């Protein structure tokens, strides 16, 4: 397969339209085998750019689609539009500051982005976190998980054309965010977890809002799902689309709800427990179909499980300090630590290397959305352009985490 060349304007057998206005980007030179394979266009195929500016790509994601009419033949996702160099920035900041850098990665569920490095640093420092702090972390984390899943449901419907559930999801999320604002002081990037605990105990405002909300928890999400779950149009568009099976999921290093929707009951909160999850009682919803509908329904089920966890946290909350005593500038002894948590999108991990100074030597962040975007190239070919949106939405990518 050779790299295609630009057509000559005098060629009498010219069958492809000529770029009269000179506005289309030239096909880039193919540097790798895969690129060569991708950019060789057969008869009837065209390249369409689902560009970084698009109403429905969940952030700045560029997908170059190779289409045969309406059918996707191949695709090449291009990322990096939101790359902020967080790992490099963390190397030049000290341990407490590094946690602030990790918030905006998966901004929809930013507490999880803080949780993972915090656990890794606590391992480096051999810090014991007070139990109350752990319970508060679980509580706030599960609230954030519900908010993230509620938004997922809304965006899933929006990408398929239903414009109402997203606004109902935002109502649900608004309540949770206001609760977390009362607790943490921030609305999106909470900056709440600290090495050794959390920043501030539960306060009256938070507890009263939480108590209030628990009586009507998930009602907007239920309204949204009632509108969608039995809707023939949505079901027809999501069932059987983008089927991911067991073996492929492991081969693609998939984790989280995408993996559980393919029949693998792997949840890090049970498989490799951290924090106080061993003391909490909850189920792991699993579905075996592996299509978009299964991924969507699974996250709806997970919201219910999260509500159970929140309930138990409130009942089992122990007293005590919420923060271990640590110096302002921490200097862990040289070593390496890896901490992985179950984020709303999957396995969110941090690998931290310390060299004895007050700045991390290397802070590697493993984001699940980054890995899951590779599934696009696997699941989309063969489907129509309309299904690309369904599959993209069902995988729940957050570009902040993908690009870091």
């Amino acid at each position, binding site marked *: 397969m050779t790299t295609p060349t630009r057509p000559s304007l005098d060629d009498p057998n010219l069958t492809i339209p000529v770029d009269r206005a000179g506005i289309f980007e030239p096909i*880039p*030179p193919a*540097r*790798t*085998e*895969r*690129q060569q394979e991708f950019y060789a266009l057969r008869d009837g195929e065209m390249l369409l750019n689902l560009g970084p500016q698009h109403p429905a790509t969940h952030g700045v994601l560029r997908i170059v689609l190779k289409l045969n009419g309406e059918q996707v033949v191949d695709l090449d996702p291009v*990322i*990096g539009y939101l*790359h902020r*160099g967080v*790992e*490099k920035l963390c*190397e*030049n900041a000290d341990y407490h500051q590094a946690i602030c850098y990790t918030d905006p990665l998966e901004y929809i569920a930013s507490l999880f982005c803080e949780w993972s490095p915090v656990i890794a640093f606590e*391992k480096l420092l051999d810090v014991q976190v007070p139990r109350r702090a752990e319970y508060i972390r679980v509580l706030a984390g599960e609230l954030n998980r519900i908010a993230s899943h509620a938004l997922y449901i809304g965006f899933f419907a929006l990408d398929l054309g239903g414009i109402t559930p997203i606004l109902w999801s935002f109502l649900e999320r608004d309540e949770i965010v206001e609760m977390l604002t009362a607790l943490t002081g921030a609305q999106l990037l909470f900056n709440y977890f600290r090495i050794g605990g959390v920043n501030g105990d539960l306060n009256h405002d938070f507890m009263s809002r939480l108590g209030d909300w628990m009586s009507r928890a998930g009602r907007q999400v239920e309204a949204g799902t009632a509108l969608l779950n039995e809707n023939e149009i949505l079901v027809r568009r999501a069932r059987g689309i983008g089927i991911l099976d067991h073996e492929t999921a*492991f*081969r*693609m*290093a*998939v*984790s989280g709800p995408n993996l559980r929707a393919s029949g693998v009951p*792997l949840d890090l909160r049970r*498989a*490799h427990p951290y924090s106080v999850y061993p003391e909490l009682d909850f189920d792991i919803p699993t579905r075996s179909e592996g299509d978009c509908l299964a991924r969507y329904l699974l996250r709806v089920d997970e919201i219910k499980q999260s509500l159970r966890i929140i309930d138990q946290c409130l009942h089992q909350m122990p007293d005590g300090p919420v923060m271990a005593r640590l110096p302002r500038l921490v200097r862990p002894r040289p*070593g*390496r*630590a*890896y901490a*992985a948590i179950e984020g709303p999108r999957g*396995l969110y*991990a941090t*690998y931290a*290397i310390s*060299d004895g*100074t007050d*700045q991390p030597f*290397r802070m*590697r962040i*493993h984001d699940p959305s*980054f*890995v899951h*975007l*590779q599934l696009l190239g*696997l699941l989309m070919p063969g489907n129509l352009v309309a299904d690309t949106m369904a599959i993209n939405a069902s995988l729940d990518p957050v570009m902040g985490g993908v*690009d*870091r």
Partner: protein
Amino acid sequence: MDRALKARLERRFGDRLAGPVRQRHDETEIRIGAGDVPEVLRALHDEPELGFTLLCDLCGVDTGTVMQAVYHLWSETTPDWLRVIADGLPREKPRVPSVTFLWKGAEWLEREAYDMFGIVFEGNRDLRRILMPDDYVGHPLRKDFHLPDDASRSPGGGVRPMESPGRPADAAETTVRRRATAG
């Protein structure tokens, strides 16, 4: 801290390990050479008593003297994370065999390690930059990569080395160049 795992690993890979099996908290760490990566990882993946089927992370590390490719794996057979460090990659031309034959999902992770460190994964069909633009020069996460600093504060007119611990202030200044449109 799974002692049984340590024993199993030493028994299975004894001669290939480039250092002792270290364990701390809930992580077990082994070091191997770059060339052993395919066999060791295939053994870890395929053998039922090891069964490390889930790839949890693949990254590069620049220790300042050598490069490393670090793999994190999870198995149902042990409560520990397993960290496999492919150590001793030369900093000028780091090369490691790719693990995309085991996990196709490692393709992008390897692309990212290549982009950030310049580690070439042999066997990866699509080894090009992923986060940085295609025609970028330099590998950002390397320790000898210097960020351009505020032009107003710099006598050099835009770039000076970042002051980092252990790095002398009179280190050679390098600039980050962007090649003009690639042909």
